[in-house]
């Protein structure tokens, strides 16, 4: 075996790198780096970028006087911007209309007084609290900002996403890019 190999050539494992070998490694390396670069560029091409005005940005919904502030009424749907406007005793919520399970649009069922998802039947209370089903957490909420007539922010949903008391007469902007995950179910 060894005799045979020796007869075929003298490349052994500890041979020093020749100039030619080095150059060929360099050629291969350029192609390898090119492949990595092209993959990165492809990824950049494919990664969606969200522009202003698309869902994912601030959505002004007008003066608070035009919104239901009734704390028992059915939630108001904002379909294009994908949230429910809900007022509770503790304050207002903008609840993301997409189920926290696998992304279906759930409905408000007035007869049941809760949200029910048509896909796998997750159920949530009016303020988004998980009731039952496969969803892993409460419904997600968007940050609500209340602005006075001069456009200054007078109230804003806190980081925990708690209901917001809205000063009378303010205008409301719902930040559909700032989504706060619901509490994981117990």
């Amino acid at each position, binding site marked *: 075996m060894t005799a045979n190999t020796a007869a075929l050539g003298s490349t052994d494992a500890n041979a020093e790198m020749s100039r030619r070998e080095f150059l060929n490694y360099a050629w291969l390396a350029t192609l390898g780096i090119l492949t990595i670069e092209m993959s990165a560029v492809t990824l950049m091409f494919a*990664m969606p970028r969200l522009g202003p005005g698309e*869902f994912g940005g601030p959505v002004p919904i007008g003066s608070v006087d035009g919104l239901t502030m009734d704390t028992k009424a059915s939630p108001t749907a904002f379909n294009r911007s994908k949230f429910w406007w809900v007022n509770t005793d503790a304050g207002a919520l903008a609840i993301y209309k997409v189920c926290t399970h696998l992304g279906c649009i*759930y409905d408000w069922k007035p007869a049941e007084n809760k949200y029910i998802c048509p896909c796998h039947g997750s159920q949530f209370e009016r303020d988004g609290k998980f009731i*039952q089903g496969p969803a*892993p957490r409460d419904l997600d909420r968007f940050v609500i900002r209340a602005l006075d007539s001069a456009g200054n922010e007078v109230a804003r949903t806190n980081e925990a996403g708690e209901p917001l008391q809205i000063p009378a007469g303010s205008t409301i902007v719902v930040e559909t890019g700032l989504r706060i995950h619901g509490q994981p179910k117990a």
Partner: protein
Amino acid sequence: MLGSGLIRDFRGAVANEVQRLRAHDWGKVVADGTDHVVRGIMAGLSARELRAILRGDVPTEKPNPRYKAQVRSFVLHLRPKYYQRASTWFTHTWRLGWFSVFFFVVETITGIILMIPYAPTPERAYGDMLYILGNIPFGLFMRDLHRLGAEGMVAVVILHMARVYFTASYKGNRSFTWFTGVILLLVTLVLSFSGYLLPWDQLAYWAVTIGTSMAEAAPVFGNEVNLLLRGGIDIWAGGLLRFYLLHIFLMPLLAIIFISVHYYKVAREHFISLPASVEEGNLPPEQKRHAEERIDLIPNLLIHEVMLASVATFLMILAVATFYHAPLEAHADPQATPLHTEAPWYFLWLQGMLKLGDKSLMGVVLPTIIFGVLFVVPWLDRNPHRLARKRPAAIAIGVIFTIVMVILTYMGTPGYGIETPPAQDILSHLVPATHPGPVKELPWEQVEAGPVGEDGLPGRKTYFVSYPPEWVDAPAYQDAEAYEFVTTVEEGPEDNEWHRLLKEFKAEVENHPKLLAPIDNQEALAKVTVEHYHPNLKWVEFTITWDEFAIDPKTKAVIMDGDRPVLKRDLKASSQPSDPGQVPDVQRSFIALHRDSNYHH
């Protein structure tokens, strides 16, 4: 003078030439020429040789021109020259690998044709589908073939894997073949699933939304993968284009590459395994020799494959021409999810697992483990034996795995383990959001709406399906053209499909334990109104109005007030003063029937 001499010479020359041509063997010239052309096209096989092949005769020339053709022809060189007889036994392979290729070819051909009138944009995709189905000759046929082929391919690839597993044909140096096979299984699944979105109907849209949401549950990069697949926060133009590109370009390319690698291993290196009974069993030497004999690809096997292709194509066409139709539902609507979105059947097991637990674990981690284990099966199974009785553990694991998959698939069906409000559930069977449903399939005339009124108002008829008994005699409802009471009488002489459907509806609401007839008898528990809205359009509305006992969400027991069960409406009246309260619950569904939309067969 001079002229006549010339003419005579000319005549003589012509006569000579004719003489010479006559003497020529024209038959041979034509035959040689044809033979040359045929051999040129058919990789050296003569016309006579081709006939011999089709007759199953021995070669007409020496050396065997068929072997030579397999060297010269690109297509034939992909195949081995010969097999061992037992490896070609039908019940060893069931030709399942072959059928996988067959379906892939069918998909490629029908898919390219379907690409001609289809544009992958939200504005056009659904319209193009309607155009394909309604306006293009053979459009429906082509689409049904493509869908049937896709389902066939998934089924056959799965069965092929099962056969390879149970015949232990992945052992030894065939491990790598198995490994590339699992890649092909994944490619086949993605190929099929990426096509699922393209019709751009509700089913497609929501099944794919759910599918991509699963990626989001991955422990790392879940959100990024989801965005990459969807091309945005929701699936829209970008997502449709991405799925289209996956479906018509990337996945077919991967399929071609890996089918080539996979088949190269089979055809050039290891050949198809012998059945374990031949390789390991103790067959009498005579039988063993027979089983291991070489048989040539050309002619018998090749002809057998031509026959299989012909029969399989015929069966597909028969299915498409008689009963098999790919569904097309309402246009995709990102604002409204239909009830009971169903994954394609080959992913129901996953949907079933999702019902069992957390979506990261069941939707991402476990499936990854399952496929990971599938990849390394040949390295996990260290048992060198192939006979079933010498590998009982492997066979048992295979059987159990199959059974578990079947059960999970059953659990994945939309009805299983999901609680929908009862009235909505019943109505969604009558008027489903995801397919035409039984009402659309009724003959148009049967769904009567009563005559047009004298005031020119559209004809309108109310069918009381479940009602307080005294209503039957109420003076208000005696006009038979405007009111009809659905009875439980088994089968009336005038009963048609419409009446049978109404009776089923009646039985369903009346037998449902949760639906109580409204206690104050102000409303019918169930009714249907049909309005002849426009000469070619009827509007059919189904209404269920019911009372329900209030259930304690914690104990799941009916709430009692002393010994009287509390109704839900009583609770609601106290918790939601702004809602009317004190009324029963109502659920409505309606459907438009068009005279020309012929769902009725």
